[in-house]
């Protein structure tokens, strides 16, 4: 359900940057979404077609660059993708592990005409 609020924010940010660049039309929006930031792509696309209607971003394509969650072991330095059952290092079984990727949640760039 919060995809509507997220979609509206994506539109607001994109329109503001397009206006600053005096663009006539937004053709593409490039998003970077980490695994730990939960939004549903299809749902955002669905809302997009509604909220962008009548703006210069109408019909723009949304591109979701999904970043898988990544953890780095503080013991042996191994980097791995965690499962939804365990976060320990699969190489040395250490629990001294830190998240290195997956929190991303941003509008990276827009393509305009």
């Amino acid at each position, binding site marked *: *359900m*919060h995809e509507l*609020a*997220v979609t509206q*924010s*994506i539109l*607001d*940010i*994109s329109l503001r*940057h*397009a206006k600053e*660049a005096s*663009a006539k039309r937004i*053709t593409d929006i490039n*998003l970077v979404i980490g*695994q*730990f*930031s*939960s*939004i549903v792509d299809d749902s955002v696309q669905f809302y997009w077609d509604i909220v962008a209607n009548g703006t210069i971003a109408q019909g723009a394509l949304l591109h979701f660059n999904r970043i898988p*969650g990544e*953890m780095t072991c503080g013991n042996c330095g191994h980097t791995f993708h*965690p*499962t*939804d*059952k*365990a*976060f*320990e290092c699969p190489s040395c079984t250490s*629990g001294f*592990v*830190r*998240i290195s990727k*997956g*929190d991303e*949640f*941003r*509008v*990276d*760039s*827009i*393509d*305009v*005409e």
Partner: protein
Amino acid sequence: MTARIPVIENILSANDRMAARNRETLDQADVYSINIMASPGAGKTSLILKTLESLNGRLRLGVIEGDLATSIDAEKAAAAGLPAVQINTGGGCHLDAAMLADALPALPLNELDLVIVENVGNLVCPANFQIGTHLNVLIASIPEGDDKPYKYPGMYRGVQVLVINKIDLLPYVPFNMNYFKRGVEILNPGVVTFALSSKTGEGMNEWTDWLVGRVKGNEG
């Protein structure tokens, strides 16, 4: 001709700015605030009511209740003598900073030490939306199971305090506390953790004593 414009802006930056304004409002009134998040049934409302009881007048408390469409929780809080405001999200799955900004003026902030915001019962959406409180608190209850940090890492990432509730049920349900805590520690190293039961009262004093310390420490 197409041109690429770099943006690199957090998707919820507008919400974050509104959250910062809420924090200013609270700080100007010298009120501490916490945002309580949890899945439905984890015991948010009962923890708030038990916290009131355990505080025993040490703090002047106000409550903002987020809910889908009813005012049951606000009525419970009001019945306990708390200034309470209900935010009905009308089906929305989380509170956002604008909703809190609308609700804050309805509380007598100058007469309060602590505002507790009860977020909508949900382990996914509220984690994305800062609302401007001083602390984000997650309640995890024993019957939910020990795998929740692994299934809902976003929620466990974004809090400063974890309250493990319903520990009186530990003898009756399978819950591997070590497995649970290992996941939490990786997602949120050093998060302040309390284990308690708002039903039996076990562990409540540690939680409320700590809370009083935080509120008093914030007054300047």
